């Protein structure tokens, strides 16, 4: 604020200085013929001194405005992201990721965007008031004439910004659509080539690009008109002031110096006035950004599902009692009255068609979702879950396995070995130190999944939940990982969603899930012989194979030694 004030005062003062110099130095020299050197020096010192002061004012104002602006942005972003961390998964599932990122980024930026020009705008308004008083004090007639132009300029500017912004917003939106379409089209390149549709795609995208062009051309027309107008108004006023001033000089009300100073002052005010108009037109955007932020920040916390999970005793690791679950705002329940007990150290597979609710069951056990009815008790101790999509963050392989746990390299390697990841990790350029994540090395889906698995195994969990985790691995690796689990983590209870017959066969127990209900529970062989729907499903998994000509008998018994009776 002090900088803004300094700037305002100095702007007025610089005009006074120019006027003083013209009256005391220039005019006397040319009209009278001589002027004292000391007066010249004083005049020059005055102009330079005030100019430097004014410049200092600008530096101070802008520096502090920037500091305030970005520190506020920092605390807003922190506040929002902390909110993201505290909100449980159920909340996150209702949000769009892109929107959440936009809140913390773009919306914060627009919110604080208005702050930079605020001190400037206040300073300018202060300056305008001081200048207006000075102008009117110099000469009432000329002063009133000049000051009357200020509101006209401000209004014209706000109007212009408001109208041109609409076109720019249109263009921005069109650009977004266009960029999305271009991305999609380039992603589809193979398809486009396969059908020789390059020309068609180019035309389609050009049409979208045309929308950007049209919006911008509209803005250009508006801009041409207003730029010329906003430049013309002060110039014409200036010329008018000269005529008016001449008559005031004639009537002896003002001196030539005062007239020049007056005109100079007026010129100095024009540019800041335009910027004030700009700042004012930014206010609505800024407010809209803040409103979106507020909405996210004020969204109440979802209850943490983990708090509702009880603990089991004895050799029961998982006890689910009459659990139902429905997504908020969606009509049908996804899980209906599920009850089951799972023994410590066992491997249980959830099997069912797509959309049967088996992944939701895992989410409920993992404490990511809260049952709408019923209760869940789990073994007391380390519980870890690995999701269908592996999440690796920007950091080294070691960081990704350890996360917040303190593990030494031997433990990390052991976990990687169990997850069948040790081989490829040791071949990475920097082994454990290799950076992964968005800016790191490119890993295949299976490799990412194995690192995510290692993260879970490194914790030597009492309960391990796998949501179709291993399907991203090739069948042989999947079997090897599951075998490692069995041999090394004997006390760990494993609950997994499985879709490959070979994986299902490894489980001690199978829960057959259909349309949200656990319809059967028992060993694989038992379900195969007793539950028709289950047998059909697993057979369907195998249709591919059963249709192989001439292989049914020759290979059947040899490759399925431990599962007699399955056809």
């Amino acid at each position: 604020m002090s900088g803004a004030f300094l700037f305002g005062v100095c702007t007025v003062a610089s005009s006074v200085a120019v006027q003083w110099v013209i009256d005391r130095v220039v005019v006397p020299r040319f009209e009278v013929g001589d002027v004292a050197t000391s007066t010249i020096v004083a005049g020059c010192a005055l102009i330079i001194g005030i100019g430097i002061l004014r410049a200092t004012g600008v530096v101070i104002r802008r520096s502090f405005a920037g500091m305030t602006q970005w520190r506020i942005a920092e605390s807003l972003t922190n506040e929002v992201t902390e909110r993201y961390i505290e909100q449980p998964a159920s909340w996150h599932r209702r949000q769009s990721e892109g929107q959440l990122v936009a809140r913390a980024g773009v919306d914060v930026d627009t919110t604080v965007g208005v702050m930079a020009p605020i001190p400037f705008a206040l300073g300018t308004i202060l300056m305008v008031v001081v200048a207006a008083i000075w102008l009117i004090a110099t000469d009432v007639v000329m002063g009133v004439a000049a000051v009357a132009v200020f509101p006209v300029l401000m209004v014209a500017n706000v109007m212009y910004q408001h109208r041109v912004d609409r076109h720019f917003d249109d263009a921005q939106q069109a650009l977004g659509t266009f960029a999305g379409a271009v991305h999609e089209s380039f992603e589809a390149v193979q398809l486009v080539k396969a059908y020789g549709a390059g020309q068609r795609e180019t035309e389609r995208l050009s049409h979208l690009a045309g929308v950007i062009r049209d919006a911008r051309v509209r803005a250009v027309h508006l801009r041409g008109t207003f730029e010329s107008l906003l430049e013309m108004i002060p110039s014409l006023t200036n010329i008018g002031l000269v005529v008016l001033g001449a008559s005031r000089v004639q009537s002896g009300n003002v001196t030539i110096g005062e007239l020049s100073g007056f005109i100079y002052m007026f010129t100095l005010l024009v540019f800041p006035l335009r910027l004030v108009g700009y700042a004012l037109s930014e206010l609505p955007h800024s407010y809209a950004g803040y409103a979106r932020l507020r909405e996210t920040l004020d969204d109440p916390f979802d209850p943490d599902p983990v708090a509702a999970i009880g603990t089991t005793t004895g050799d029961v690791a998982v006890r689910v009692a009459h659990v139902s679950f429905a997504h908020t705002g969606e009509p049908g329940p996804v899980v209906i009255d599920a009850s089951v007990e799972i023994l410590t150290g066992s491997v249980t597979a959830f099997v069912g068609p797509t959309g049967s609710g088996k992944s939701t069951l895992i989410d409920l056990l993992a404490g990511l979702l809260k049952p709408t009815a019923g209760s869940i008790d789990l073994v007391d101790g380390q519980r870890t879950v690995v999701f269908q999509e592996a999440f690796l963050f920007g950091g080294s392989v070691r960081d990704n396995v350890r996360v917040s746990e303190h593990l030494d390299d031997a433990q990390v390697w052991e976990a990687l070995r169990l997850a069948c990841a040790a081989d490829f990790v040791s071949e990475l350029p920097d082994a454990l130190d290799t950076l992964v994540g968005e800016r790191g090395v490119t890993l295949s889906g299976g490799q990412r999944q194995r690192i995510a698995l290692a993260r879970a195994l490194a914790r030597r969990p009492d309960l391990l939940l796998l949501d179709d985790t291993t399907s991203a691995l090739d069948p042989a690796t999947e079997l090897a990982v599951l075998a490692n689990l069995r041999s090394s983590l004997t006390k760990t209870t494993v609950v997994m969603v499985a879709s490959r017959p070979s994986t299902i066969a490894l489980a001690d127990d199978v829960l057959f899930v259909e349309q949200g209900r656990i319809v059967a529970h028992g060993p694989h062989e038992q379900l195969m012989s007793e539950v028709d729907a289950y047998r059909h499903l697993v057979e369907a998994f195998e249709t591919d194979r059963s249709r192989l000509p001439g292989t049914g008998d020759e290979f059947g018994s040899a490759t399925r030694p431990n599962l007699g009776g399955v056809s």
Partner: protein
Amino acid sequence: MTEPMGRFSATSTISRGLEEAPVLRQGLGLTWLLAACGAGGRVVVPIVVQQAIDRGIVGSDDSIDVHMRFVVWCALIGVAAQLAAAVCQRAAIVRLGTRSEQALNDLRARLIGHIHRISLADHNEERRGALVARVTSDIETLADFFRWGGLAWLIDGTLMIIVAAVMLAYNWLLALIAIGISIPLFFVLRVVQRYLVAAYDRSRERNGNMLATVTELVSGAETIRAYDAGDMFAGRTQLAVKGRADSQIHANIIGAFLFPLGEVFSVVTIATIVTVGVAIGPTGGLTAGALVGFIFLTYRFLEPIAEFTEVLDQTQTAVAGLRRVLTVLDIPVGPPPPETPRPLPPGRFDIDIDDVTFSYRSRSDSSTSDDIVLDRVSVHIPAGQQVAMVGATGSGKTTLGRLIARLADPIAGDIRLGGVPLVLVDDAELRHRLVVVAQEPFLFDDTVLANIQFARPGATRAEVDRIIDEIEVRDWIDSLPDGLDTRVGERGDSLSAGERQLVALLRAGVADPDVLVLDEATSSVDALTEVRTSRALAKLAAGRTTIAIAHRLSTAARADRVLVLEGGRLVEDGHHDDLVQAGGTYQRLFDAWLSATST
């Protein structure tokens, strides 16, 4: 400043850019003339002030004589000139704006057209983002340039020249002083500007870093919670956010110095001019009005310099953007279209693969033997045969499929369709007669129908319906919420992998090709869809030459003929029943596959 070499390439980039966008050059002279007239308007006011004060108001300390008639005349001329200037300025802004937008639009279209014609090898996943950036953000740097920088060059540049000329006309000595002082100002501003650009680059980078961290936090929310890593991620994020804020503040402080520097220089200039002007005095031919007018002109002259330094950077950014755009236009189209195409024979045709070798074009010209993907492969495929190509990852089976579809050209040997060398077949005809169904078929964010019609935009709903019945997927279409009008979501996300395959098969059905190249999916598909897909495929393949790049050996087992590739060579060729007992590569693959998929 830029090195001579860089400057040369900058000018050549610009002239090349003008060549690619001819709209821009048309009437550029007139636009400039209009801009010059518009800029002239800014000189009018100081002249009127000078004339009015100097010749209209003559007086000494005790008697002031004002020639009102003269002052009014001056003012009228001033108003007329200002009005004319405003009209010219508007015309210049509109002309430059419309033309540059049109030019950029043409450039976008040219780029997209070109990118769709370059070889698939130039389209890999890592470069896709870059290619999209060429068409969007790089063109945007040019648009920004035309919106601000281009206009500034045109108007401010002209204005400075006019002001300098007027100043020289008034008094050459004072004019040289003003111009002389502006030169160091320019260089000082350039230095500050350089720091500023570096600071902004850093803050942009930190901003990207911050957004990446936030994205990570949001997309990993479940894992973060499950692993109790909230504090760790909060710490990471705060660090990134603080880094961003610090760099912004730093850039802001540098920026705060930029504008006032011009201020300091202009007061120094004015003080110097007053001193020198007073020293010259009336004997040097100077008048009070001229000196006063000069003071105003000096402001007008120095004003655009600060802006110019910014414009210069924007210009550099735009030239860099243009250079990247031109680089893409320089990527050769591939495979090149034939100069004199030969028509394919009507009806079914044989496919001959003759001694074909392929290696992916490496950026460095020296392709070592390791890069060889296919090594002298020869096969004759009679019309109507169902062929399955099998082999481990990297065996070259996918590449061979692509070569047959001419998504790339072999580096040696040739492929003939019905006796016509593939390189001589017109692309439109080839795409009509031969269709590739990709492994992960791509779906546009549109309806199922629109995605099927992509194969042939003229295809009617009735035709699509006929194909649906033909390949027996009616029950699936009926199970969709809105049937054919169901929207598939981004990349077809609302459909399962198997369902996307079905859309791709329908698409191929609508295209009704003679040859079907099928890149089989590796991902597991739910059982019901799997059954549907196999059935649809069998129907679709009937009566056509089908080349399947098989990942499931069940597909191979059903084929008329199996081609086994290993390390880029064709190692086995025969029927499944024979190969499975031949004790070769195929038998090994088959055994491994069996044990993995069995229960």
